[in-house]
C-alpha cells in the first residue's frame, strides 16, 4: 500500500471526522452514565441521548419519539421487517421488496418466507428503478409491508419514494425504506414522503460505526426482536450507545449544514471519474446518470477482466474501491444487484464501485483514473479473452445486458 490512500469506498463506510470524535469523547470518560440510572450521571446521559434523538429526527422531519436508536442500519431493517411481521394479523402474510435490495433486507425477508410469509421480489429496469405500476400490481389484500431502498448501495439508483409510497398509501400497506446511503445526501422529509419506516446509520456520514436508527411513524406497531429492559420505547432493549448517539447527531449536523453545496461538488467528482473511465475501451457505467443517482456512487464494468484482481492491484497502488465480482464476495455468487439490472455474469464479475465523500478531491479523481487505466491495461494484457479484447466494438455499442431494453 502506498503512503497516501485514495479512499473511494465511502458507500461501505466513511472516516470519522475530528469534531465528531471530540463530541463523543466526554461521553466515554466524563459523562459515562447509563441513561437508565436515576443519579446525576444517568441524567446527563439521558439528556445527551434525547438531544441526539431530537436532532436526528429533525433532519427527517420526524418527532423525537418516532426515532429508535439501533446498533446499525441492518438492525433497523430487521426491526422494521421482522417487527412488522410479528404484529401482523394472520390475514396479512404477504411482503414486497425488490431484487436489488441489500442483504439486510433480503435475508429478513427470506427468514419470513420460511415461516410461511409470501414475498414478491420486484424486477427493476436497466438502471435499477422499480416501476410504481409494477408495485401496484404486486399489492394484494394480504400485503402487509413493502420495503424498497432509497439509494441503492451498489449502483446508486435513487428510487422515487414519493410515487412508490403513494401506491402503498392507496392500499393501506406499510412502506419501509432502507436509506443509509441517501441519508444526508438527498433530502427525505417524512412529512412530505408517504413512508412509514426508514433505516439510517451514522458511519456512512463520517460518524461512528455501531449506531443506526429506525424512524417509526406514529401509530405503526412493531414487535421487538430482542428481549430485555424497556429502552427505546420498549422496542430495542440494551443500554443506549450514548457516545454513538452523540456522534451520530454531530455527524448529521455537519452533513446537513452544507448538504446541497457538498453534494453538488461530490456529484461533479463522480461525473468526472465516470467520464474519465469511460475513455477506456470496453467499459460501461451501471445505474442511472445525473440527478437520479447518488452523488456518492459510480459503478463501472471493465469487460474481459475480473473485479477482485482489479481491486487488489488498485489497493496496492493506494486506491480503495469495492467490487461486484463473485470472487470478492463471501458467497462466490456475483452481485444480485448487477444481475438484476440484466448484466451478464461475466460483466458483473468485472464491475468496480467507486464511492465518494465530501472529503475527496478532484486531484484524487484524476490520480485514481490514471491508476485504473494502468491496472485495466495490465490485466487486459494477460486476459484469456483474446479475440474479444481486440474487437472494434466499444463502449455503448457493446452488449452488456442479457435482455434487450424492451424486455425489461
Amino acid at each position, binding site marked *: 500500500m502506498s503512503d497516501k490512500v485514495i479512499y473511494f469506498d465511502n458507500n461501505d463506510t466513511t472516516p470519522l471526522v475530528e469534531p465528531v470524535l471530540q463530541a463523543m469523547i466526554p461521553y466515554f470518560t466524563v459523562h459515562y452514565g447509563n441513561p437508565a440510572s436515576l443519579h446525576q450521571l444517568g441524567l446527563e446521559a439521558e439528556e445527551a441521548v434525547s438531544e441526539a434523538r431530537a436532532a436526528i429526527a429533525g433532519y427527517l422531519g420526524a418527532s423525537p419519539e418516532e426515532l429508535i436508536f439501533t446498533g446499525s442500519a441492518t438492525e433497523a431493517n430487521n426491526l422494521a421487517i421482522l417487527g412488522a411481521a410479528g404484529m401482523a394479523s394472520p390475514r396479512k402474510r404477504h411482503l414486497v421488496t425488490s431484487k436489488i435490495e441489500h442483504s439486510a433486507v433480503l435475508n429478513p425477508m427470506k427468514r419470513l418466507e*420460511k415461516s410461511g410469509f409470501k414475498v414478491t421480489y420486484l424486477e427493476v429496469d436497466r438502471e435499477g428503478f422499480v416501476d410504481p405500476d409494477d408495485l401496484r400490481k404486486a399489492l394484494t389484500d394480504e400485503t402487509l409491508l413493502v420495503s424498497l431502498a432509497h439509494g441503492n448501495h451498489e449502483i446508486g439508483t435513487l428510487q422515487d419514494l414519493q410515487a412508490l409510497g403513494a401506491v402503498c398509501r392507496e392500499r393501506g400497506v406499510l412502506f419501509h425504506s432502507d436509506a443509509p446511503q441517501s441519508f444526508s445526501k438527498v433530502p427525505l422529509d417524512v412529512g412530505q414522503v408517504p413512508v412509514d419506516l426508514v433505516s439510517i446509520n451514522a458511519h456512512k456520514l463520517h460518524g461512528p460505526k455501531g449506531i443506526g436508527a429506525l424512524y417509526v411513524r406514529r401509530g405503526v406497531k412493531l414487535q421487538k426482536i430482542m428481549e430485555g429492559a424497556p429502552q427505546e420505547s420498549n422496542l430495542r432493549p440494551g443500554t443506549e450507545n450514548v457516545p454513538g448517539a452523540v456522534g451520530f447527531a454531530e455527524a448529521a449536523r455537519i452533513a446537513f449544514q452544507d448538504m446541497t453545496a457538498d453534494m453538488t461538488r461530490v456529484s461533479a467528482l463522480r461525473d468526472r471519474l465516470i467520464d474519465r473511465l469511460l475513455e477506456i475501451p470496453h467499459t460501461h457505467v451501471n445505474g442511472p446518470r445525473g440527478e437520479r443517482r447518488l452523488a456518492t456512487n459510480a459503478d463501472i464494468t471493465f469487460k474481459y477482466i*475480473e*473485479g477482485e*484482481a482489479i481491486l487488489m492491484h488498485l489497493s496496492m497502488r493506494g486506491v480503495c474501491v469495492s467490487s461486484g465480482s*463473485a*470472487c*470478492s464476495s463471501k458467497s*462466490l455468487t456475483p452481485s444480485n444487484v448487477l444481475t438484476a439490472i440484466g448484466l451478464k455474469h461475466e460483466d458483473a464479475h468485472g464491475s468496480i464501485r467507486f464511492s465518494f465523500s465530501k472529503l475527496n478531491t478532484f486531484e484524487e479523481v484524476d490520480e485514481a483514473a490514471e491508476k485504473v487505466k494502468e491496472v485495466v491495461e495490465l490485466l487486459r494484457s494477460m486476459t*484469456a479473452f483474446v479475440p474479444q479484447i481486440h474487437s472494434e466494438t466499444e463502449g455503448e455499442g457493446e452488449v452488456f445486458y442479457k435482455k434487450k431494453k424492451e424486455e425489461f
Partner: protein
Amino acid sequence: MAIKYTPEVIEHFTHPQNVGEIEGADASATEGSPACGDMVTFTLKVNPENKIIEDVRFRSYGCASNIATASMATVLAKGKTTDEVKAFHPKVVAERLGGLPAIKMHCSVLAVNGLKAAVKQWEIAHGLAQEEEVVCNEQTIRKLLKGVINPETGRSIVAMNMVNYIKVEGGRVYVEIALMGTDELYAENIREEVTEKLESMKCLQEVIVRILERDKFEMKAENGPRPEGEQPGGGEA
C-alpha cells in the same frame, strides 16, 4: 470480504510467470467459464522425443488467486514430462503458494485441470491418447463432480460425501447435493458449479440439480418430494 493472501500468492499475482501464449504451440486448452468469473488458457511446447514440456504459457480471466495458481502451475510444469504433469495434484500448487484460503482452493483445481487438459490435447495430437467418448453414467458424473470444490472447506464435494443421489436416464440427469452442514450461503455457488460441470457433458441434454439443506439420507419436508419418478435407489441413498 477481506481475503488474506500469502506473500507467495501476492508475488505470483503481481509478477506472474509465463504469461501469454506460445506462437505455434503444440497444444492448448481452456478451462473454466466467463460466467463463473474464472477462466484460464494454457499453451504448451513439448519435445516429442522425451515428452518434456519445454515451454508453457497462460492467459487468465480471474481473481488474484486464479492468476497466482496459473502462474505457479506453469512454473511447476516447465521442464517436467507430460506424464509427470498428468500426476499433478492441485494441492501441490496451493502448498507451493504457501496455502490458499478454502474459498479459493477451486482456483488451484482449475489451473491444474487446465494444464492437464492441454497435455491431453498434445497426447491426442501425437496418437498417445484418444478423444474419449464421454459416457454419462453415475461413475463418470461422480468423477466429474470431484472438480467441484466446497468453498467453505476447500475440499471436493465428492470427497465430502455431499453428492447424495445421481440418476441418469437417457440425456437427462437428476443430482441431489446435501449441504452436510455447509453454510447455506454457498448453496447457490455449489449449485451453479455442479450445473455448469454437468452441462459441459455432451451426452446430457437436461440437468436438474437439487440442494438438500440438511443431512443426507433424509428428504426434508420443506424440500418437497422428489420430482415424479426420482425415487432413491441409485446413489448412496
